């Protein structure tokens, strides 16, 4: 840092570098380095472009995948659902016509957009990344400004590689201390959201920092950044460090040779300057966290697994109506204990927890045990590469011995656009990111948790603290 320059946060450093032109003091033309698209939020953008007689400005900066709509069984067959098939075919056609790289169904690189970007080395520190999908914040784990956009904005990026934006405020969330055994980064982020609410970071871009964050692997960091949108944040990021560089090095699209050295030198300038000032700072202690579970219909309605659902006196009066509506939907009562509640479905997957470390954690936990009879479980890898790796490591066999089946990759029950829908009124413990009404199917009742908690539930058929098993065996 030059001594006469104001100290900057990592958010300012990346943001300011991508401003092409200021329109007025708050608004600027902002450059996008990488654009991901998928079948659901792109068709109207391409037709908009066509109607205007425009072409895709920088086809090589956009990468496409089919993920939201696709089946997770028999992917080699034609897609059964007519509308889903049309959407996937429309994506294929739009990519072919515009020269966009497509990792479509059955391509060895196919998978959930936020899983494949990092695993292919496309996501790199310092970049600006957008996608017509709110969980684009996942890529922030690499020290990028990454955020979800709407379809009109997808069209803008296709047309110009730019967006018109105003700069968000900056927040830093510091998590220090040691995370206990049987806990995952999913518990950290569910804990933070439960403390600050589903709108606690709206208007902000968030940097996650502190020793508990530094201790995490890249995959665990992605889980944290993935859910920053669930507290309303425009996006969330973690400064790159050796863990980041080690993860990227050698990946398919990572820089190589001299280019690597040059990029690495730049990446190392990105972390926030020591005296940089954030608009807001929050502090949490990882040792206060126990395995988390949600009880309501937004991700902020979460609690430690041994806690009870709040009673009405603990809720602000103006929120009573919404709170009651939510518990009624879930079939829970105020003051209920979560532990021991019966569960019908377990879903392990999504861009939050569908990576190889998640499958390893789940398989490691259930190894040698048996799936509870009342549980239907869907174990869905986040990508083709995750699926292949899981098979290489024999995780599919461990799963099969315990009564589980590894499906094919896709978004699956995370948003239930394909056949994987939780039936009305049924309870699902899910490693995905949203417990909204009907998110996993009309009338479905979702409780969000980590892959380890999901594993404990899958074995007992009830809400169970995964640490009960760990204390017995101390295996993990």
């Amino acid at each position, binding site marked *: 840092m030059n001594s006469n320059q104001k100290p900057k946060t990592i958010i300012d450093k990346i943001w300011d570098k991508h401003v*092409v*032109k200021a329109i*007025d003091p*708050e*608004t600027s*033309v902002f*450059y996008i*380095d990488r654009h991901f698209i998928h079948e*659901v*939020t792109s*068709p*109207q953008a391409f037709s*908009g472009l066509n109607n*205007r007689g*425009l072409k895709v*400005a920088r086809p090589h900066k956009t990468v496409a995948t089919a993920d939201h*709509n696709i089946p997770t069984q028999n992917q080699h067959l034609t897609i059964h*659902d007519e*509308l*889903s098939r049309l*959407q996937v075919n429309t994506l294929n056609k739009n990519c072919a016509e515009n020269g966009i790289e497509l990792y479509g169904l059955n391509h060895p690189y196919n998978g959930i957009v936020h899983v494949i970007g990092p695993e292919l080395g496309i996501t790199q520190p310092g970049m600006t990344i957008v996608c*017509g*999908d*709110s969980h684009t914040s996942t890529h922030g784990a690499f020290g990028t400004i990454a*955020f*979800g*956009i*709407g*379809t*009109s*904005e997808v069209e*803008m990026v296709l*047309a*110009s*590689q*730019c*967006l*018109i934006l105003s700069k968000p405020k900056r927040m830093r969330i510091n998590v220090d201390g040691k995370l206990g055994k049987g806990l995952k980064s999913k518990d950290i982020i569910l804990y933070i959201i439960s403390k600050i609410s589903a*709108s606690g970071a*709206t*208007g902000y871009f968030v940097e996650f920092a502190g020793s508990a964050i530094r201790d995490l692997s890249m995959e665990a960091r992605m889980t944290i950044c993935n859910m920053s949108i669930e507290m*309303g944040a*425009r996006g969330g990021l973690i400064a790159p460090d050796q863990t980041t560089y080690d993860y990227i090095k050698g990946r398919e699209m990572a820089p190589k040779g001299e280019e690597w050295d040059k*990029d690495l030198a*730049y990446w190392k300038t990105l972390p926030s300057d020591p005296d940089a000032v954030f608009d807001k700072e929050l502090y949490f202690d990882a040792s206060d966290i126990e395995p988390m579970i949600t009880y309501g*219909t*937004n991700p*902020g309605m979460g609690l430690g697994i041994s806690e009870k659902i709040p009673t009405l006196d603990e809720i602000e009066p*103006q929120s009573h109506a*919404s709170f009651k*509506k939510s518990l009624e939907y879930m079939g829970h009562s105020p003051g209920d204990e979560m532990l021991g509640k019966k569960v019908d479905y377990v879903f392990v997957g999504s861009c939050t927890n569908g990576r190889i470390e998640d499958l390893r954690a789940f398989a490691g936990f259930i190894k040698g045990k048996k799936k509870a009879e009342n549980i239907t479980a869907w174990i869905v890898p986040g990508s083709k590469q995750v699926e292949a790796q899981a098979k290489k490591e024999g995780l599919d066999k461990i799963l099969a011995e315990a009564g589980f089946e590894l499906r094919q990759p896709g978004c699956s029950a995370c*948003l*239930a*656009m394909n056949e994987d829908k939780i039936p009305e009124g049924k309870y699902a413990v899910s490693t995905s990111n*949203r417990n*909204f*009404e*009907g998110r996993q199917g*009309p*009338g479905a009742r979702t409780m969000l948790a980590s892959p380890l908690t999901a594993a404990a539930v899958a074995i007992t058929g009830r809400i169970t603290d995964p640490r009960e098993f760990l204390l017995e065996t101390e295996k993990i």
Partner: protein
Amino acid sequence: MPIEKFVKLTSTCVPLPVENVDTDQITPARFLKATTRQGFGNKLFFDWRYAPGGKPREDFVLNNPEFSGSILVAGKNFGSGSSREHAAWALYDYGFKVVVSSFFADIFKSNALNNGLLPVQVSEDFIARIFEAIEKDSKTTLTVDLENQTISIDSLQISESFEISAYKKSCLLNGYDDIDYLVSKSAEIERWEEADTLNA
């Protein structure tokens, strides 16, 4: 697609005093399989509007003939969750021109503005006054004046100002959209790319 101009609007309103209305409620995921922007109004709040089997739920406000108008008044943190622009399309296609709330999710706000749907953020206090006024008289009208950035409860003659970026305001007042602007700047964008040494 250029957006419709918005200058000033006086209308009765539809009250939805629920907090954290997420975009999965506004347009459920199973309706996202369309490849065009049209026709989402029928899908608006589908699972709140219709019981399984398709019968309208009488207790939902859109099925209550007492309430109508092109202004939706909703509880705080409206439009959270998914980035699906289908939520903004559904509201607009249904006939809403303005959504009033004490707090909006960021992506929803930009999606709305990009479609000519004006999100008006007011204080908790003011929104409580609106809900009260509608409860007393379902034909209460609000006036939203974009030029002056004010929203008024007409019968009470009270108003509050709201914020909107100068750029977005001029787009709405004139019916311009961002793509026209961005495409007109393509030479500048190219020069910027050339100067950016790290641009891969």
